[in-house]
């Protein structure tokens, strides 16, 4: 397993009162994404726990694109990954954020 946490400063969140959301499952080639509110409103904190070590560069590229695209402040994202491809990671992140934002 490889573990790292990335932190991005981004546009502050607009709304309060979001509930934590979980998307996906920890299965081979898949991952779960937990999205929760974070006290620091302009921070996006992403914690990655992956069974496929050695791809941190790709994670960083993908996650910074994700944060830039979505401008998610005040959010903590925690990932348990079991070797998902970037395509699956991207889709799951979008789904999780969508559920988080629409669910309040």
């Amino acid at each position: 397993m490889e573990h790292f946490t990335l932190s991005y400063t981004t546009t502050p969140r607009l709304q309060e009162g979001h509930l934590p959301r979980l998307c996906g499952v920890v299965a081979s080639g898949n991952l779960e994404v937990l999205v929760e509110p974070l006290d620091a409103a302009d921070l996006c904190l992403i914690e990655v726990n992956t069974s496929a070590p050695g791809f941190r560069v790709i994670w960083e590229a993908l996650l910074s694109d994700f944060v830039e695209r979505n401008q998610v402040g005040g959010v903590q994202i925690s990932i348990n990954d079991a070797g998902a491809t970037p395509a699956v990671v991207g889709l799951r992140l979008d789904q999780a954020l969508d559920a988080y934002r629409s669910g309040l």
Partner: protein
Amino acid sequence: MTNVRPTSFFEATARGRVAKLVDAGSFREFCPPRLRRTSPHLARLNAPVAFDDGVAVGSATLEGYKILIAAQEGKFNGGAVGEVHGAKLVGLLDRGIRERPAAVLLLVDSGGVRLHEANAGLIAISEIMRGVLRTQAAGVPVFALVGGACGAFGGMGIVTRLCNEIIMSEEGRLGLSGPEVIETVKGVEEFDSRDRPLVWRVTGGKVRRALGEATYLVDDDIDSFRSVTAELLCRYGAKPLAVADIDEVTAEHARLAERAGRFATARDGREIFQASGFVDLDEVSLLPVAKFNQQLLEYI
């Protein structure tokens, strides 16, 4: 995009199943993912962990009936039971005794004990077994819903059989030892685990229904599971649950003994189907669920 197709129980995740099974938005989770009660034992073995350790437990309503519900995630380690996972199920059953919901629903999707923490898993299963019996003794019925890819095997196969009702889909499986285990130990002649039609004829929903092990056989869509569950909640709600007494357990004993005698040499579900009145045995596996249920009913 409009989507009128039913949602497959088989394909849905544990959380997806719960969300579609209960009244919309009514699910309240206990020990939710944000608490991160992951398995310390998996972590020690450097294996991936899940925030809910592979099972979601909580309360909800179903057609207005208050229920407690647990759903195992078959995609995470085969839905296998470890210390945390098992404790969540035990805790839910204990809560059932205190809160007295209309029923506790167990959405079983599990190969049994999680090998990474096998001792803890085995003990947990025996605690779940006693938990089910305790909950029933307190007058709260427990229903099992089986329709996931892992079926209900190992200790969870025993737990499932302790439940008051077992609702299965054709894709669901119920047994003790998985075909792969039997093949590994006893050889491919004993059980060819790659002969999938055979695997289903031995452990699948239809043969379990024909034997009377499953009390309901439904289509693989969450709505079908829901409507049968709702019907059962209504029926069980009408009168207090009687705890199994000596006569009832003796009757069950007679039923099991009769089956063992009647099918003393059977090794293939075809023999069960034949004894259940089905004529075209090749056709049974392709019969739509409604037709299968109807033919079974006509014979009985």
